[in-house]
């Protein structure tokens, strides 16, 4: 991955804010992600981003992500979107606000709606344990 981990963490922090809780399963996912990406500082970077965005309102958070998106390496938008989705679903629950944010992230990252929908469809299809909000 060529994108700076801080930029990735900005999106992951926004993913955490969809349900307002950075729970044990999300932390475990980030730990696995850090290992997979070979970025041992990822959890610390993410926690710093969660802190940095804590007092932002929704507009400010969207602006913050738009600025971050400009620094995403070419061709890595879909990958970052997919990682955000996996983090949002690490607690096994896919809620309406999380789906709304998923498409907002896609828009900000310049991923078109059909490609975003395909990422979401594939993930939901693969993760049979995922609980869908009623």
């Amino acid at each position, binding site marked *: *991955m*060529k994108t700076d981990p801080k930029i990735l963490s900005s999106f992951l922090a*926004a993913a955490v*804010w*969809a*349900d*307002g*809780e950075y729970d044990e*399963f999300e932390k*475990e*996912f980030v730990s*696995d*992600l850090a*290992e*997979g*990406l070979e970025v041992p500082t990822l959890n610390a970077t993410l926690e710093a981003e969660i802190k940095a965005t804590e007092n*932002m*309102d*929704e*507009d400010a*958070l*969207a602006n913050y*992500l*738009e600025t971050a998106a400009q620094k995403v390496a070419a061709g*890595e938008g879909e*990958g970052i979107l*997919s*990682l955000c989705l*996996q983090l949002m*679903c*690490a*607690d*096994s*629950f*896919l*809620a*309406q*606000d999380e*789906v*709304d*944010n*998923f*498409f*907002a*992230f896609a*828009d*900000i990252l310049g991923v078109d*709606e059909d490609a975003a*929908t395909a990422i*979401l*469809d594939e993930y*939901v*299809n*693969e*993760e049979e*344990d*995922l*609980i*869908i*909000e009623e």
Partner: protein
Amino acid sequence: MALQKTASGKVDKRTKEYKELVERAKKAREAQKKAAKKPVVKKSTTAAKRRADGHLDQRTKEGKAAAARMAKARKAQNSLVNRIKRLFK
């Protein structure tokens, strides 16, 4: 994703709920675009478990067990690493 059917021919509840979730999100996005508004990134300042919106039981009971199974499967199948390789080749 097409709606999946159960063995008895009924539409699978899980895929039905998923389709509805995606449809609502797309309608909201269309409304935002029509109003020429920027993307809205929702932010909850109240942890999900403490919300009084009816999702508490799913998240705290079924959710814990399901999340543990997902994490276990992720490690056993090396699925995250495989996804990372596919996403960032």
